[in-house]
């Protein structure tokens, strides 16, 4: 038996096909590896940056307890009572006095519950009230004056409760 007949008899074609398959698979794998090598080199260059990035990510996965959202709908991590509810900490007397005053002012700029904060500030300045900026800020911090989430402000239930008690 000679030539092609001998090759076929000894499974030469199968062996040749297998050989071609192995070589080409190896070439494909090598070319893929080389084409992605730049990413590995880049990662090696940034290895310390990646380390700190992962470290910070792990730290940020610590459970937080947001209990409320700010006017943009973002969760706030520091506890704040939801708008309108009565907070456990009492409101300082001077803030209550300011609440009365600013509530009256708000009624001069708007006949409805919602009003524009810059207008309230403007009216307070016009009337010569002392430190209107920090006063308004205090009313906001005490959750007496709250945003409606669309650019307007209103008095909270907490504020209205205090005003009712004063009558």
């Amino acid at each position: 038996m000679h030539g092609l007949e001998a090759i076929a008899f000894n499974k030469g074609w199968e062996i040749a096909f297998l050989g071609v398959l192995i070589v080409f698979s190896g070439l494909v794998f090598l070319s893929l590896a080389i084409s992605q090598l730049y990413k590995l080199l880049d990662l090696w260059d940034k290895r310390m940056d990646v380390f700190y990035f992962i470290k910070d990510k792990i730290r940020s996965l610590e459970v937080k307890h947001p209990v409320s959202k700010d006017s943009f709908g973002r969760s706030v991590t520091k506890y704040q009572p939801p708008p309108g509810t009565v907070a456990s900490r009492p409101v300082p007397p001077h803030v209550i006095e300011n609440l009365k005053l600013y509530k009256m002012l708000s009624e001069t700029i708007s006949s409805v519950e919602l009003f524009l904060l810059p207008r309230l500030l403007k009216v307070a300045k016009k009337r010569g009230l002392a430190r209107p900026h920090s006063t308004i800020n205090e009313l906001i911090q005490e959750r007496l004056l709250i945003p409606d989430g669309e650019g307007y402000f209103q008095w909270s239930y907490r504020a209205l409760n205090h005003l009712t008690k004063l009558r």
Partner: protein
Amino acid sequence: MSGYIDLLKRMDLFKELFPRELEKFASIIHRMKILEGEMVFQRGDPAQQFYIVLSGDFMVYFKNGRSFTLHKKGDIFGYSTLITPFKYSGTVVAFTDGEALTLSGQDFLRLIQGNAELGGKIMKKIYQIMNERLPFTS
């Protein structure tokens, strides 16, 4: 400068940046004091500075009178420095004495335009913030 890096790292806008990217920002940042009642900038002014709140409370209001307030460290205002026509779209007033970090609009733009990855990370956050504030401007 390392003090600024630690500060920036804790802020939402910069928390995804790598340390050497933070260094670039830290090198162009300045600190400024703002007084109660001060108008930081007015709507229509050329937008030259980008601000990051360190302390204090601020009100941002727009032509339609709508407003929102900022009270947290890391809150930002003045992002019109990065967006045409580079004029402030709102007015910012300080409710209390405070401090802010400022970046010149030119330096900020140069930084993010010179580095696509860095620019992508920052602008993604800024667009998120712009989106949140869009209802207030219309």
